């Protein structure tokens, strides 16, 4: 049997075929030559779905909250993209988010686990592509869950229409709240595990931080949840809905999406340049330059300059 064409795969994915959608996601996840074709094909039908980012410290309850949100959204075909780190040593990964979700979500929820796979720059391209494919397949909303450690992971979750940041009681005081970049991206805060002591203290610390100022005219609301019991999830969903309507009537939605599209182009260029940079290091002249650096004959700075010069001409080529 011949492999199905790209159009056939998209058509099946649109009608709810999980396998077709799974295959398409694998293609963009690999970021090989096919990925560009898939991305371009998805671009035609995408742009409809609402994208919600969920981030926070490991073990704060993001997966449980994400699963619950998909359930209370009442959507016909919600999707979850759950991102976990790959081991930097072996490239392997344990993707364990589904075990926190499966019991709560309906069978119409599409869950895909994604590993960060090596350098984080790839994630900045693979995730928007995966969201685009899910969107083109008719999934809505799309919830992207990442561990809130590392600039790229936070940025990925923040590249959403609405970003939810999850903290737990005892996570830190108001000073921590201010210095952690994680908190600047929040549209909605969740204090999860609210059945634990000092949940209200955690809320107070966040309020204090917000009192010192926040971006624009949206002040991030703080919702207390006990996600394992499903408590507070309805409140969280209504705050997300409220933020969605704010995005629409303030014009912020368009601004955010424009920003997101622009930054994806930048990310793709960076990734492309990085790949080409690795090529010039790998080739013969690159290797001989590297050997001279190893022997202390050439400084790393001079070597990098030399190799870069072969990649980017000083002057742009004339038309």
């Amino acid at each position: 049997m011949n492999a199905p064409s790209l159009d056939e795969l998209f058509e099946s994915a649109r009608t709810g075929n999980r396998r077709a959608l799974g295959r398409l996601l694998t293609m963009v996840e690999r970021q090989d030559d096919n990925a560009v074709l898939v991305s371009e094909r998805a671009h035609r039908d995408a742009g409809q779905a609402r994208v919600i980012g969920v981030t926070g410290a490991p073990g704060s309850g993001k997966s449980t909250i994400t699963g619950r949100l998909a359930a209370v959204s009442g959507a016909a075909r919600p999707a979850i993209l759950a991102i976990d780190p790959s081991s930097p040593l072996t490239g392997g990964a344990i993707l364990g988010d589904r075990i926190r979700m499966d019991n709560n979500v309906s069978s119409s929820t599409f869950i895909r686990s994604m590993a960060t796979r090596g350098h984080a720059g790839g994630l900045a391209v693979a995730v928007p592509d995966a969201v685009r494919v899910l969107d083109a397949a008719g999934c809505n909303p799309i919830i992207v869950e990442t561990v809130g450690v590392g600039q790229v992971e936070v940025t990925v979750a923040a590249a959403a229409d609405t970003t939810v940041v999850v903290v737990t009681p005892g996570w830190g005081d108001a000073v921590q709240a201010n210095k952690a970049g994680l908190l600047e991206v929040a549209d909605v805060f969740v204090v999860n595990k609210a059945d634990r002591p000092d949940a209200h203290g955690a809320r107070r610390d966040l309020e204090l931080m917000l009192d010192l100022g926040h971006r624009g005219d949206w002040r991030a609301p703080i919702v207390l949840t006990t996600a394992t019991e499903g408590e507070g999830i309805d409140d969280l969903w209504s705050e997300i809905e409220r933020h969605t309507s704010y995005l629409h009537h303030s014009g912020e939605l368009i601004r955010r999406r424009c920003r997101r599209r622009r930054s994806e182009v930048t990310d793709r260029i960076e990734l492309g340049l990085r790949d080409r940079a690795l090529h010039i290091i790998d080739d013969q002249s690159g290797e001989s330059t590297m050997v001279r650096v190893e022997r202390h004959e050439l400084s790393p700075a001079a070597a990098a300059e030399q190799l870069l010069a072969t990649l980017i001409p000083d002057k742009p080529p004339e038309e």
Partner: protein
Amino acid sequence: MSETPGISPLSADHQEPLRVVLAKLGFDGHDRGLKVVARTLRDAGMEVIYLGLRQTTDSIVAACEQEDADVIGLSMHNAGHLTLAPRMVQAVEEAGLGVPVVIGGIVPAEDVTVLIEAGVAVVLGPGASTEEVVAAVRAAVARQSPAR
């Protein structure tokens, strides 16, 4: 069906990293072995989609489809393998997934042949080393490849 030029046969190549769905099927609470295997396969560079306890054939098939998995690993310690493992194989066939089913856990020697005849790719016992587990998973995927 026509094939768009430039699109390679999808996933039939089983590029690394292999994606493995690990689960316990049915009513069985012994998940320590499964956790060890999850860690072993991760350390061998695979991506492990860990479903954990109390899964059904339906939930495993759904996860395989959504995750575009290359292989299913089931851990069995409840003496239900003769009933459950063939059902898993059948569910995989019905869904047209074409992924091998690897069993680990406590399976008496005389039952191994029965499971293999029922379509299980390989049965790994308590004595299997981590190297054997990794090699068996890779071999099961490689054997299945042409059929996918």
